[in-house]
Every structure is written in C-alpha cells, then in structure tokens.
C-alpha cells in the first residue's frame, strides 16, 4: 500500500478498495516501526490522525469526497497546527501548541486529508542538512550516513522512506528542492505569493514559500491544487487566478525551449552529477524540447545577496521570540533585559544566532546602505537576468545541487561551505520564481535532482514538463533499499 502514489491512493479510496483508516493506520505503523532509523518526524498524533481518517471515510461514503479526502500527509513542523505541537525545529518552540491552523493546514483539513505528523527540519528552516534541528539530525533513507538535505529534510526523508505518501515543505533558498534532490523525490517551490504564508512560521518573509513534496509531479500537482490560492489574511499572497494544475499535465513538449545557464554547469558541479543532468536533458530533447545556452550574468552575486537579505529579514522576524507571550522562557529572570537575552541564548541554536547577528549588523545604523540596500539592488539585477532569459526560452534547467547528499557532520561546523550547497537554488527565491526538483539518476547510489525554473506563475508548465519526463523515465519510481519496502 505504501508504494502507491497519492493519485493511486485517491482512486483506491474512492473505489472503496480500502478505507482511509486502513491507509492511515498502515502509515502510522510504518512510522512507529521505521522512523527510529531516519528521525523524520518530530510529532505524531495517532489518535487525531485516526479520527480524521474516520471522518474522511464517512465523507467518502456519502459521495462527497475531494481528490485528497482520506489521504494521509506529513507536514513540515513550520506549519501551525491547532492543538498539535509546532516546534519549527527549535527549543524556542518546543512547548508551542498553536491555537490556530496555518491556511495551508486549514485547506488540507477542509479537503479531508489526514495529518500523519509533523516533520523534522533545520531550526527555523535555516540550514541545508537538517543538522541544526533541536531534535537531532534526520538521516537520508538512501544512505543513513548522509544528510537528507534541508531545511525540509524530514518531509523529504519521510516521503522517500515511504512513511508518508506526500508532504509539505517550505523553501526560502532551496529548502524544498535541495532535500527533494538528495532524497530522490519531486518537490515544487511555487511562485512567491502563490501559497499563503499565514501560520507558516516566518524566516525571511520576502523569500519564504510553501510547496508540495511527493513521489511524482502528478502528486505535486494534486497537492498544489489544494495549497494554492489567494488568502486575504496574508497581505503578500497573490490574487492571480489559480489554474487546475492537473489539467495541463499531459500537454506535449513539442517545441519547448529550455535554457541552460552556463553558470549552472561550470566549476563546482560534480562531474558525475552533471552527466546525470545531461542525460535527463537528452530525454527532454527526445520529447520534443530544444536546448539553448543562456546566460545569467549576475549569478556570482546570488550567494552574497541572499546572505544579506535572508538574515536581515530573519533578524526582524525572530525578534518576536522574547519569552513573554509563548515559547521558551528562561528560569528566574532577574529583570526584563535578562529575560530577553537569556531566553534567546537558551532558545536559539548556533546557526539561528549567527543569522540573527548577521541580519542585525546588516540593518544597523551606518551599515544599512552598504549591505541591505546594496543587496536589494543586486536582487533586482538577479531577477532581471531571469526575465531576460524568459524572452527567448520557456524554462531554465540545470542541476538542483552541485553534487549528491554529503555525509552527516561533513559541513556542520563550516557555515560558508554549507551556504555554497545552495548555489543553484537561491536565485529562484530572490527572483520570486517557481522552481522544482525531480529525480534524474544516481551517483554512488545516491539520487541526483534536475531543477526546472519557470517564469512567474509558470508552475503549471513546470509540472507538465516534469510529468512528461516521468512518464518516459523511471528514476522517480525507485525507492531506497533499506527499510521494509518490500512489505
């Protein structure tokens, strides 16, 4: 049963082949039995999951089921879930049980989907390895000595290890795409503003975007249909009409123009990974696409720009954690200053503190123009590069990451080398574009991710391209050897 995709489960549930309670119980049992090995979940509420599954079965029986009714899903522990702990991977929120649902969660609940649990993540989504989680690192199901990527590493590992048919993630600089690549699954970061950020704990508000992580592009489309749409309670959410993302999946790729940025295939790219990407691109050519070299002249500015903009916004967003209204509070504060400084010393981990300090510095008097304003100007140049490319090509393609999953601990103590892991994904967030990663082969038995980048609100086209490629290839159907997948 756990080998089924979301669309297969959806059909099976509506045909009455099995009930949502049976499917949900099956996944809960797999989590209980296998997650010790991966540490993909922070919280699992079996009772609430089974109650939601029962309600879904009643709804299916009455003929009122939506495509996701009865489908169990895992949610990144950054989405507020009413009555279920939402930690954001941090000691700061280890005791936080939200009194409300994120809009994304509300939408999945009203679609009738079941919450299996909340997945592990880098603390406050700051990381590329899941090692900064207060709850310990997540292990990559393909090689448990390696990281799953981050920050949505728990979601990626849960889907890859078949502990959930699909999951949600968030992506501020690659946090859906990079773990999707490392874990051999399909993940989509939608256009900025396509998915509501209400109740999605903020890291960098002008970059953050939620999206689906699943085992196929078709499943991502199904999830996005529920997630996407204007939310009057998120003032940055877009009111551009939402298309039916499953409707265009089958469109032909004849005449599709794919741009290959030289910057994504140059120095720094592992040669075996590059070879996988070139093979995947050949498949797209065989489906009717043409490949053209394109240039992103400002791509060297991407990493420095991101590491000013994101920490600056983070330092502002995380100022709310002060030990007064919710979350961690230090014991016996001597005065208000002691309450703030000690609560934040104890509640935040090293990487979060570093980013708050960098952001505070970049926004402080005397440095604002040299850092923050300069980065915002560079950000416009970076976006313009992409807009110029989309004059002559329909999408851009390249590797999601410079190489396959690295070993646990390999970069844990070296922030700058960790930051370089996201060299191909960061610009997409700075430019607000949709981007996705899908499986494209293996290097040393570890998955490789192909990244597709589209123009603003072009996620439907990306899903279509990924779907057609997945119909012609089988990389996305492979599952890791360890675990009990044969069962």
């Amino acid at each position, binding site marked *: 049963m756990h080998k089924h995709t979301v669309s297969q489960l959806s059909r099976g549930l509506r045909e009455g082949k099995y009930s949502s309670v049976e499917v949900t119980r099956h996944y809960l049992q797999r989590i209980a039995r296998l997650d010790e090995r991966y540490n993909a979940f922070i919280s699992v509420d079996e009772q609430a999951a089974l109650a939601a599954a029962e309600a879904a079965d009643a709804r299916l029986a009455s003929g009122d089921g939506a495509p996701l009714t009865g489908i169990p899903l895992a949610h990144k522990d950054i989405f507020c879930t009413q009555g279920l702990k939402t930690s954001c991977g941090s000691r700061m929120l280890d005791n*936080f049980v939200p*009194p409300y649902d994120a809009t994304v969660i509300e939408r999945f609940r009203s679609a009738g989907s079941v919450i299996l649990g909340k997945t592990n993540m880098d603390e406050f989504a700051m990381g590329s390895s899941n090692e900064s989680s207060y709850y310990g690192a997540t292990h990559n199901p393909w090689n448990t000595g390696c990281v799953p990527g981050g920050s949505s590493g728990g979601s990626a590992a849960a889907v890859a290890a078949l502990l959930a048919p699909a999951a949600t993630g968030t992506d501020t600089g690659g946090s859906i795409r990079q773990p999707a690549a490392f874990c051999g699954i399909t993940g989509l970061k939608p256009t*900025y*503003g396509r998915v509501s950020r209400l109740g999605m704990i903020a890291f960098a508000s*002008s970059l953050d975007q939620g999206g689906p992580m699943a085992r196929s592009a078709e499943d991502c489309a199904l999830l996005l249909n529920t997630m996407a749409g204007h939310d*009057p309670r998120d*003032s*940055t959410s*877009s009111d551009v009409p939402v298309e039916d993302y499953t409707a265009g999946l089958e469109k032909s790729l004849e005449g599709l123009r794919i741009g290959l940025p030289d910057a994504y295939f140059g120095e720094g790219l592992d040669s075996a990974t590059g070879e996988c990407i070139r093979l995947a691109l050949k498949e797209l050519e065989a489906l009717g696409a043409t490949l053209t070299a394109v240039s992103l002249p*400002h791509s*060297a*500015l991407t*990493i*420095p720009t991101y*590491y*000013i903009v994101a920490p600056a916004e983070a330092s502002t967003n995380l100022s709310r954690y*002060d*030990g*007064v*209204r*919710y979350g961690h*509070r230090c014991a016996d*504060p*001597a*005065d*208000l*200053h*002691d*309450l*703030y*400084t*000690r609560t*934040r*010393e104890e509640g*935040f981990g090293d990487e979060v*503190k*570093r980013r*708050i*300090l*960098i952001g*505070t*510095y970049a926004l*402080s008097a005397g440095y604002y123009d*040299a850092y923050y304003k*300069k*980065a*915002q*100007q*560079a*950000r*416009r140049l970076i976006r313009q590069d992409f807009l110029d490319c989309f004059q002559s090509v329909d999408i851009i393609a390249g590797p999601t990451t410079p190489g396959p999953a690295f070993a646990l601990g390999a970069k844990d103590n070296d*922030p*700058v080398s960790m*930051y370089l892991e996201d060299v191909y994904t960061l610009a997409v*967030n*700075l*430019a*607000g*574009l949709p981007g996705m990663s899908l499986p494209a082969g293996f290097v040393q038995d570890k998955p490789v991710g192909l990244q597709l980048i589209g123009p*603003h609100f072009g996620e439907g086209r990306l899903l279509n391209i990924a779907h057609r490629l997945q119909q012609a290839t089988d990389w996305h159907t492979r599952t890791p050897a360890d675990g009990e997948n044969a069962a």
Partner: protein
Amino acid sequence: MTITQDDIEKIAELARIRISGEEIGEVTQRITEILQMVDTLQAADTSNIEPMANPLDATQQLRADEVTELNRRDDFLAIAPAVEDGLFLVPRVIE
C-alpha cells in the same frame, strides 16, 4: 570589512542575545567568515538600480478597517509562560 569581538558584543546586545565569554571568540570568527563572503557584493555596480523589496514588485494590499478576528484572548493567554488577570507577566520594570 573586519569585525572585532567588541562589534559582536554590540550587535548581540542590539539583538538581545546573550553570548557567553567562552563562545564569543568562535562566534566572531564565524561571523567574520560570512561577512568576508558577503563583502564580494561591494564590487557589484548597482548605481541607479531601484532596491527590490518584493519579487513581484507588489505593493501592500489594503482592506476595509473592519473587525474580522474573534476575541480569543483566553486561547492566547493559555500558551503564555506567565499570566495574571488576563495580562502577560514580565519581571518588574519600574521600581
């Protein structure tokens, strides 16, 4: 751009994060490395480029000034570390 231990102490104070004496050296070194990396941005020519705050250049959406939220004071106080008489408690500020 070089940054000293003194600078880090000042920034940490602005950010209201206590950093212990034994950690300050390590934190200073890491922050220095990151700032050296971001300093490569200074070479970029950004003259006459409008700063970009929103990737879609969207402006703030407005709505009518009407009460739309329910009063859920008790729900929000229930998750606070210390409350009394419907108020959040903090250490004494005024003697």
